[in-house]
């Protein structure tokens, strides 16, 4: 066997004449792969409230809040910060209510608000938020201090 010196010198010299491989993100946004699992979206139209998505979520990132089961009034509360983006909920849903976007993946934020997302009919979300606000106000009244 012949032993050599500088076996990778060729690579180094060739690289000197190549343009840089770095990308100019965030100035130039690179297209994400088609199958990227980004932010979760929920379509309330076909949901039956079976809760299978919630039961198998490994990180407890989704809550399905039932306002009225008979008239199918549900609100999905989604926590993108807890989500591991495994898409198990999407696989579990038999009615294709859930899907993960390959477009929305820049989810970093400095505050906490963007990490609680409500999906559902506008009036249902409004109803739920008002209910939560009432409950919060009620608790504060009961507090001895």
């Amino acid at each position, binding site marked *: 066997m*012949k032993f*050599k*010196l500088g*076996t*990778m010198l060729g690579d180094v010299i060739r690289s000197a004449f190549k343009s840089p491989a770095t990308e100019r993100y965030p100035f130039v946004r690179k297209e994400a792969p088609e*199958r990227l699992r980004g932010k979760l979206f929920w379509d309330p139209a076909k949901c039956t409230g079976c809760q299978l998505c919630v039961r198998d979520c*490994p990180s407890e990132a989704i809550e399905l809040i039932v306002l009225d089961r008979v008239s199918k009034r549900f609100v999905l509360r989604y926590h993108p910060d807890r989500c591991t*983006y*495994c898409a*198990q909920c999407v696989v579990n849903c038999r009615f294709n209510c859930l899907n993960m976007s390959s477009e929305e993946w820049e989810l970093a934020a400095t505050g906490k608000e963007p990490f609680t997302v409500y999906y559902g009919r506008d009036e249902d979300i409004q109803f739920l938020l008002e209910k939560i606000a009432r409950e919060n106000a009620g608790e504060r009244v009961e507090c001895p201090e």
Partner: protein
Amino acid sequence: METQRKFIVPIGPQHPALKEPGHFQFTVDGEIVTDASVRLGYVHRGIEKGAENRNWTQNLYLFERICGICSHVHATALAIGVERLAGVQAPPRAQAIRILMAELERIHSHLLWLGVAAHEGGFDTLFMYSWRDREIVMDLLESLSGNRVNYSVNLIGGVKFDVEDKHRDAILRGLDTLEERTRHYLNVVTTDRTFLARTRGVGTMSRNQAELFGTVGPTARASGVARDVRVDAPYEAYTLFPVNLVTDEGGDLMARFVVRTKELFESYRLIREILDHLPSGELTVRVPRKIPAGETVSRVEAPRGELFYFIKSNGGEKPERIKVRTPSLCNWASVMQVAVGHKLADMPMILSGIDPCFSCNDRMVLINRGSSSQVWSWDELRRYGIEYYKKL
């Protein structure tokens, strides 16, 4: 002045050589290491306990996170075991996609190791270029699964996504480039004189030693031990796509470089064969939420060696017990033995020679040393605890 005292060099848990925490004590005589010991457990995460509070599907994602590099094989090992307990088998196409991902993952893991090991030997050029080429396989994994790590390919009872024609073409194109580059790297690690000075004859482990220390994976195969779960006990689609074993008689660091690099060629061949003969059909099979009571052992070949899962179900939605033994744990004894007699400066190379993964192997291990075993009652244990803290 002559002294009889031993000089011990402590390294770690945080140290410049490796990126993960582990504590090593090397007893040295001048530059030469005369004794070595390792202390693990800095990244114990209690995953096995956590598994008991999650259902089978949730555990799939928990166990995928045992290792960031070989995440797919962990999920595969669990899925195979659970499917066996449930008495079902993933459809042929799903099995083939599982091993396709496993082989792509092996390529990415071995290229990563090649870079890290070269970096420990001071050969940063090889590190940079092998990692640049690793991006090709990372992009392939990303296009197939949508993620660079934690691909989440597996479901209990199958896989999530299919391999389409466009993926097939992209993989074949990528493999052609990678094959050419790997040939170059094999040439580099076997002929570069400065690099061979760091690897040839360093950390030599004979076949007997390798068997005695219970080494697994490429570390064992580099010492001539023909041991590979894919060959010895083929699982999933490995029965359809047999693997040719790669071994080397050298036993030194160079042999480990050669074995891992040659395994890359074997993975390229295997992936091409899988893509040419991908079985058609369904991707999933229905598995009940409650897994029948029973216990099983699931073994798969991770990039670092044999990965062992013990799974016990009590008939519910959650496991009773899952025990994981990762390949790195098996290989530690060999490092501590072959380190003796080498220079202290060779230690990072010898350590990285087994491709250690610390957070993988940090699990509760109870060593029963025969005579020292004893049964304590709760009271005795309590009294012992009180006495112990009084002494401090």
